[in-house]
């Protein structure tokens, strides 16, 4: 194979996704009447093919670089990209029914998801600050449009605009940080930056301006994973965006941004560990606290889930903050379990309809255990799992994260984490209380169930995973270990 062909084969999933998604746009434009269904099916097939291409050369233990070292393909990327494909597929499958018959039933929906996914792939495989930035912006632009997808409602448009403005600020921070780092190192390529910083850090430590740049870059990325104090947009966007879009936001983009943070702190910033560690520890602690406390007072289900996701990012950040291979593994385990739980939660929420829309108030769930017992028990299992009660999967995610923290002697962080998880348990229990201990009689309007086969399949799979993880954890864990093993020198 010629060098060019090798490089193309390394980036095959991305190239395939780019060409395929553009083709979908053309197909959609030629089909009549929204054409959501056919394009969605084709898109799913396309994603499946790209998933195959991610793994077509087997698991790669050695990192391979391409396109003047701007692009990196390794085991970590393979696992994270697979998570993104599966998360996006789940988000698309559960939202088909919700979109049907509304103004949003348009072919652009899966196409935008595809572009966003492409951007995330590029983020994960970025080995250069410019590649990072281009991937991030591609992914974000698609997300801004999706937030405003229900363009006839002020709420959705507001969500899109808010997300866009705040996202633009965070991109500005990121770019400024990159420029500072470039100013010191003279390169945007991760390996060169890493080598320069490493050489500079040995006797005297790097200059303050580099630390400024690093913190700004981390801040820009923290915005994407909605870590405190860069979380302000999350509740508003989750609440304002259409529920199907919220599901996608909750499940997928954070995986890519988290992967990118790992890439940076384990790559170019590896030798500045004592400088970035406090930043990440602080963000983790704040996210857990705010996520736990602010969610308690929420009455709106989507806002509650927004704060829940802020808190959960805090736990995942613990894994990154401890800076060990164990930590990265635990982050991947945590994030993947969280993804499955979120998919199940949103699937159930979207199946429950009230006057034609997915339910969005917690009180809408009153007495669900009497009226729809199956769904109530399913949601209760997910809520117990989210609050980290064994024997459900969520507990093992937390176990892994806290284990990595304890192994790295971060005892205070671990104790802090478990205590906030008890506080957080309060609001998850509150949802269970509404479903089980309250009656449906004082509901103004009855809640009905509408679901189609893909939604049922996603919810069932996620429930099976949550309940059954304890029995067969092996395969899942070996993937996570494989991903982090390649990353650490």
């Amino acid at each position, binding site marked *: 194979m010629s060098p060019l062909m090798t490089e193309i084969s390394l980036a095959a999933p991305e190239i395939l996704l780019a060409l395929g998604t553009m083709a979908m746009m053309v197909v959609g434009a030629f089909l009549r009447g929204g054409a959501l269904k056919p394009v969605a099916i084709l898109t799913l097939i396309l994603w499946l093919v790209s998933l195959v291409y991610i793994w077509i050369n087997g698991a790669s233990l050695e990192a391979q670089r391409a396109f003047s070292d701007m692009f990196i393909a390794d085991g970590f990327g393979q696992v994270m990209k697979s998570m993104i494909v599966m998360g996006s597929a789940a988000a698309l499958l559960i939202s088909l029914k919700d979109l049907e018959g509304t103004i949003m039933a348009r072919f652009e929906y899966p196409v935008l998801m595809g572009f966003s996914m492409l951007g995330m792939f590029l983020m994960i495989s970025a080995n250069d600050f410019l590649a990072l930035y281009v991937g991030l912006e591609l992914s974000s632009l698609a997300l801004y449009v999706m937030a405003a997808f229900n363009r006839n409602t002020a709420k959705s448009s507001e969500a899109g605009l808010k997300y866009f403005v705040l996202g633009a600020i965070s991109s500005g921070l990121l770019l400024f940080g990159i420029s500072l780092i470039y100013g010191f190192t003279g390169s945007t390529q991760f390996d060169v930056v890493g080598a320069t910083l490493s050489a500079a850090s040995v006797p005297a430590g790097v200059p303050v301006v580099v630390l400024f740049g690093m913190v700004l870059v981390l801040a820009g990325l923290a915005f994407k994973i909605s870590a405190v104090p860069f979380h302000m947009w999350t509740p508003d966007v989750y609440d304002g965006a259409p529920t199907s879009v919220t599901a996608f936001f909750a499940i997928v983009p954070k995986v890519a941004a988290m992967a990118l943070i790992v890439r940076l702190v384990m790559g170019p910033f590896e030798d500045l560990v004592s400088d970035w560690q406090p930043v990440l520890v602080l963000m983790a602690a704040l996210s857990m606290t705010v996520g736990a406390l602010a969610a308690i007072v929420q009455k709106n289900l989507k806002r509650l889930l927004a704060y829940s996701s802020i808190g959960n990012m805090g736990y995942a950040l613990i894994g990154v903050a401890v800076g060990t291979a164990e930590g990265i593994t635990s982050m991947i385990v945590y994030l993947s379990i969280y993804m499955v739980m979120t998919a199940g939660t949103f699937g159930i929420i979207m199946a429950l309809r009230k006057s034609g829309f997915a339910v969005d108030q917690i009180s809408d769930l009153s007495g669900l255990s009497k009226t729809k017992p199956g769904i109530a028990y399913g949601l209760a299992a997910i809520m117990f799992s989210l609050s980290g009660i*064994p024997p459900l999967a969520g507990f093992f995610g937390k176990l892994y994260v806290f284990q990595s923290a*304890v192994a790295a002697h971060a005892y205070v962080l671990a104790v802090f984490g*478990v205590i906030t998880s008890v506080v957080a348990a309060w609001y998850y*229990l509150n949802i269970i*209380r509404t479903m*089980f*201990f309250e009656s449906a009689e004082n509901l103004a309007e009855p809640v009905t169930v509408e679901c189609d086969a893909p939604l049922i399949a996603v919810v069932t799979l996620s429930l099976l995973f949550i309940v059954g993880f304890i029995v067969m954890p092996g395969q899942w*864990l*070996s993937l996570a270990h494989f991903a982090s093993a390649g990353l650490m020198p």
Partner: protein
Amino acid sequence: MEALAQVTTEGAFPILSVMTFLPLLGALAILFIKGGTDFVTKAAQQTGLFISLVVLGLGIYVMGHFDPTTADFQFVERKLWFPYLNLQYYVGVDGISVYFVLLSALLTPICILASIQSVHSRVREYIIAFLILETMMIGTFIALDTVLFYVFFEGVLIPMFLIIGVWGGARRIYSAFKFFLYTLLGSVLMLVALLVLYSQLGTTSIPDLMANPLPFSWQFWLFLAMFASFAVKMPMWPVHTWLPDAHVEAPTGGSVILAGVLLKMGGYGFLRFSLPMFPEASHYFAPLMFGLSIVAIIYTSLVALVQTDMKKMIAYSSVAHMGFVTLGIFTFTKQGIEGAMFQMISHGLVSGALFLLVGVVYDRLHSREIGRYGGIVRNMPIYATLFMIFMLGSVGLPGTSGFVGEFMVLLGSFQVDTRVALLAGTGVILGATYMLWLYRRVIFGPAENADAASMNDVTAIEKVNLIPLAIMVLILGVAPMSVLQGVGPTVNHLLTQSGVALAAGEFVPPQENMPAGILPEQPAAPAEVNQ
């Protein structure tokens, strides 16, 4: 690192796993019963009862084939469970846990039987919840891997939360939340302690951890973290406040399991984790534990005295009885620890039966107020007799099981510190006061309320539930060796192990904090010099 020889060979019938997971399978089967409400109710009750009786049969078999002469773990099963972290599915029983397994297996069918008369809504879910609860309870006592233990220990919360919240009384939501969050907060600290143990010693196997205690500086914090969990579960004063609420609001079956088994998890935890894994810290904190136990015994007895709600009174009396357990455990004497074990088993039978008895009259009159009853002995002679047996068992009258436990604990604590024994002794008197007074007001006295005086006596189902328990209370009272001989070797082993750890460790306990005579095995303890 292998601490103990394993008696059971590989490939033997996995009886402990079957006991643990059979109820779960039963719950699954009940989930899929189809038909009308009446049919489902009947079928669920019958299946639940059948499954739990099979488990009880298996429990009796385990007890029968249990070798009481050794401290080794028996019926051991071991399999890799979580690769990478190297967590094991590792179960087995010794002289401490085997009785709790039997107690759990005994009380579950009783609760299911009692529910036939008292639970009429969502019966299917109720039975499922109890079967899942049984899996979690038995699992907690047989687990020999710390994470496996934690999974079961904590998993109890899910069914119990629903049992209190769905089938409970008027303030059930408050009580369910209080129960859940209190217990969870304690438990998560224990989780951190377990993870620290794992990261320091590289194993999650309980026998290995028991054989290799860490230095005192570690033990100090780990003991406190575990203490947070077990003290809440016990419950010890001052973290006992969830218990009266949970007991009062829970349905009868929930109260029976709470008092009978869940409280014992705290005592079991102290015996399984705190004593062997942190021997120096346990000695170091013994005065604190004595203090808390004494407060629990005296203070909660006084609180019990003024209660007007029967369930609340029994709940407070449970806290007082658990005070005897912690007192006995931290005496580090053979009598004290065996007495604590005996007290736990006896309390499981007696308080479980007392809650059943309250349930009997509650089903008829829907009131737990003591003042609503009185003079019911005329119409309910059998009820009065049974009540008397269990009341006396709770008081600790010689001839009942309650006496043996309390007496041995007092004996053990007397060897260590006479003042402690004296103060604990007043608890026995107070116990007699409130129980006898309760009995007089409920059973005897003028029949002021016509409806209370005209209640029917116990039904056949209630007899089936209560009479075996009464017989057991009496048998244990006159023949305590039937339990003690099984407990003995394990307790001896525990004491030797923690004694060896004390002697071998470089740790010298700070003497100024220790009352005289706390350290019986300390060869050169200059206690007198310090005074």
